[in-house]
């Protein structure tokens, strides 16, 4: 009987040790991965001038996308901006774009485009995403969209979010 009690005590002790190891979760693990994604979405006119723009800031963590839905007259654009924080505090930025586009109001045809772009960036560095492509020709007679993306890590500080 003494041996049985000793065995049960040993089992209980080992179980307690294992359970104690699995309960060391700390929310600070997440705090270190906190990222701020600043977006400046701009609509460019036929002369590449900024016709309209909108700024926004979203908080996320490494590997979690900021999901943006942009509605236009004849299109719906869905952009997923996913920053991955590297151990050396550089950022690997992935931009996924999906476009549902109709040529005209009376057209029943809907075109679908998708793209996946990536770029390694520094903390606070600005990049520009052109989901509809780039308008190289200044005389081109069409509008375009550009999304300026800036990813700031928690260590970079909120006070420098507006750094140019």
């Amino acid at each position, binding site marked *: 009987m003494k041996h049985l009690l000793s065995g049960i005590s040993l089992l209980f002790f080992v179980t307690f040790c294992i359970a104690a190891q699995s309960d060391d979760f700390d929310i600070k693990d*997440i705090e270190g991965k906190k990222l701020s994604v600043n977006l400046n979405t701009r609509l460019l006119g036929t002369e590449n001038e900024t016709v309209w723009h909108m700024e926004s800031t979203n908080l996320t963590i490494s590997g979690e996308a900021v999901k943006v839905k942009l509605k236009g007259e*004849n299109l719906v654009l869905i952009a997923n901006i996913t920053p991955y924080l590297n151990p050396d505090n550089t950022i690997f930025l992935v931009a996924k774009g999906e476009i549902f586009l109709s040529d005209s109001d009376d057209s029943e045809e809907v075109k679908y485009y998708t793209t996946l772009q990536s770029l390694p*960036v520094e903390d606070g560095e600005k990049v520009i995403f052109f989901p509809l492509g780039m308008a190289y020709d200044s005389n*081109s007679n069409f509008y375009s969209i550009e999304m300026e993306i800036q990813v700031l890590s928690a260590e970079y500080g909120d006070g420098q979010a507006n750094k140019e």
Partner: protein
Amino acid sequence: MCPDSQLVSTYYDKELDQRWSGEIKSHIAGCDKCGIQVSKYQEMSKLLGSCRVPGEQEMKLRVLGVIERRRKVEYHEVFWKKHLAVSVPVLMGAAALMIIFFAGILMGFFPSQTRDSQVVEEIRTHSIGINVQVINLEDAAAYILADDSGFDLLITIPSNETLSVNGEPQLIREADYKRGQ
């Protein structure tokens, strides 16, 4: 006439029938020869009762030692076949502890996975997974236009201008970009 000495011995051992025993008893009471024989039987019984067997204690200890050695050998040889008398509460308690033990081992093997999944679940509280079956792009577009949930940012362009795709999508650094060129 005196009875046979074997018969007297049987009487002394109280093994005779009651009828014969009475007659022998009355004969012995009146016969000196038979009375002396019974007295000899009594002295012999007393002598045997008072005698000790030589070396009895040593023999007893030796036998007990042999029994003890055999018991130990049998205990080691058939340990796994030994039957233990365990009460039901003790058995149930041991079973519960075993379950807790193995559950603890499983938790110890996969701590990071459960931890990450918990974190992701907490962060995605406002996110709704898209699970819709579409048969063509028109249905997909209709669904996309109708459902605005699950997005962090919703932008509506305040322009009636028609937008179009102007080539391959690009992701470039701002330092490498000059608008219009």
